[in-house]
């Protein structure tokens, strides 16, 4: 019975099931538009951000971990010293997500009643920094020092075997905060996943204040008046950042194969990963002929697809789905915004292409190290 339950969880945890499921759930939990907001209301999902919702979330988390720890495979991964920060990260992120959104929904309700946000009530009063802030800082410093010392005494810092340049540990993992990048490396070439995307992520984050021209919600927690901005940010931060790190830490085992949370890390697990390029799909499967020798002719379909993706989609979206966004942002902001969005969306798109069609590269020119 328990074993069957664990098997079901293992299957549900597979990326091609869990990832789409999370995206769908995300859309309703963090509604980006008025229409989705209505559905969210009707389903009662906003109740997650109340005290009872918080208790429910944490009961679920603790039960999940408690149940998981009875399983030797799960325990072995989670209690590894190097993974402790990530377990801590999960609880902290969930807690602060709940804490921020609880205050946001409270403020939204006040706004609906025509009241000012909670913070504005507090802000009416001025206080002196000495002693009211200084002592808070002092206590915070004491607590965090105590935490660090206890942590350092209880858990040894990870140290593996001395370096050996000829034996890669199996699996070899980057530092945990880079595991999101390492996960992207499975789907993209190093120059994209390791150079282009980090740069784009950095630039994208820096552009946030200039793209988001909504002046509401400055200086207090809110959701309703900036739901699009918050939903997009949370999608990146929760799914493409935190969740990919968790996947990389807990669910990627030997040979970088995928393992469910209750699965034994078998070094010899076989997984057929035979991948093909788009050019091979077009010429060899659809047209049933040899690959052309000319590189440009060979890759023209992929190049056209990419050009279309980055030029036509923005135009079409501006006329249809994102009409309101276009009107609000204007042409320049919209162009920057949509390029970042398309680059970001290329990750899930590439994932699905890999899972469903085994596509490896859209454009593959290994002669010039240029694979996309």
């Amino acid at each position, binding site marked *: 019975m328990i074993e069957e339950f664990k098997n079901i969880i293992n299957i549900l945890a597979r990326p091609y099931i869990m990832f789409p499921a999370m995206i769908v759930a995300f859309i309703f939990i963090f509604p980006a538009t008025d229409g989705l907001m209505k559905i969210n209301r009707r389903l009662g999902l906003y109740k997650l951000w109340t005290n009872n919702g918080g208790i429910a979330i944490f009961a679920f988390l603790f039960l999940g971990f408690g149940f998981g720890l009875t399983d030797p495979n799960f325990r072995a991964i989670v209690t590894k010293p190097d993974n402790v920060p990530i377990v801590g990260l999960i609880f*902290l992120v969930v807690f602060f997500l709940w*804490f*921020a959104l609880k205050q*946001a929904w409270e403020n939204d309700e006040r706004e609906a009643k025509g009241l000012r946000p909670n913070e*504005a009530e*507090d802000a*009416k*009063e*001025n*206080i*002196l*920094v*000495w*002693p*009211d*802030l*200084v002592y*808070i*800082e002092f206590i*915070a410093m004491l607590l*965090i020092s105590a935490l*660090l*010392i206890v*942590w*350092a005494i209880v*858990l*040894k*810092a990870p*140290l*593996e075997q*001395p*370096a050996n*340049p000829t034996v*890669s*540990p199996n699996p*070899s*993992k*980057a*530092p*945990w*905060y*880079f595991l999101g990048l390492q996960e992207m490396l499975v789907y993209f070439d*190093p*120059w994209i996943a*390791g*150079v282009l995307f980090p740069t784009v992520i950095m630039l994208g*984050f*820096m552009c*946030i*204040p*200039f793209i*988001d021209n909504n002046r*509401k*919600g*400055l200086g207090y*927690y809110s959701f309703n008046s900036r739901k699009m901005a918050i939903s997009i940010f949370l999608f990146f*931060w929760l799914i493409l950042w935190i969740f990919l790190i968790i996947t990389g830490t807990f669910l990627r085992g030997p040979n970088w194969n995928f393992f469910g949370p209750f699965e034994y890390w078998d070094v010899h697990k076989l997984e057929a990963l035979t991948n093909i390029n788009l050019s091979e799909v077009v010429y060899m499967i659809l047209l049933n002929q040899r690959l052309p020798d000319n590189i440009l002719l060979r890759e023209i379909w992929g190049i056209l697809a990419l050009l279309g993706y980055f030029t036509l989609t923005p135009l079409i979206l501006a006329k249809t789905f994102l009409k309101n966004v276009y009107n609000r942002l204007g042409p320049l902001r919209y162009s920057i915004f949509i390029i970042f969005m398309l680059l970001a969306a290329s990750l899930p798109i590439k994932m699905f292409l890999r899972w469903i069609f085994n596509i490896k590269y859209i454009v593959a020119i290994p002669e*010039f*190290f*240029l694979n996309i």
Partner: protein
Amino acid sequence: MSDQPNALAKFLDWLSKTQVAKAIFRTGIPKNRRQRMTVMLNNVFLHLHPVRLPKHAVKIKYTWCMGGLSFFVFLVLTVTGILLMFYYRPTVEYAYGDIVDLREQVPLGIMREIHRWGAHLMVITVWLHMFRVFMTGSYKPPREFNWIIGVVLLVLTMLMSFTGYLLPWDQLAIWAITVGSNMAGATPILGAAGPGSNLLALGDVNFVTSASDARFAMLGGRFVGEGALLRFYVLHCIGLPFIIMIFMIIHFWRVRKDGGISGPV
């Protein structure tokens, strides 16, 4: 404060009136409103703060304390890092042994643990700080520029952590750095294995080779070895802390100059 001052209070009162105490603290024990304001202005460290704040700004439920904690953990890392440097030699021959000795032979033996866990903690607090700043909309005008500085600090924090990762010279270290440095090798144009690298060539002579590309500059060699360890050590202990401090100064300065901590208008 109390009607019958006890012995300790009397002693403190006397102490604060001595010439030495006056010379150091100027203000005396801050008891009344005026003294509490001047103490903030007179002390160079406390002067980081404003004198008074709207009440919401000191509430933990608004700030989560994450920015302040990031800074404090950074200070802890600086102190423990300096202490670690007394025992650690950045060479392939000694590095691993020195790390083992730091735990086994050095008194107390938890300095490296504090440094390592502190580094993890700082990454987490910096992320949560960013999350809080986003959720309160604090990146909106007039604070756009400080958000950019914040993103730079986030990246620098992760680079600090990454360079520190190599120093124990264990399996985790060299393979993380192998992967990381090969990504640098895949940089377009500047990396030997990156797209466009063969565009920079005169006839048969390639300018971007494994001995002259971005990866080489990072490693100081064609393999992860002695040169890489030394370069990462210098970056970790001097180079990046220097840069991160400059950006922190700008960050804190701009918090004050952009109107203090954000709040409802």
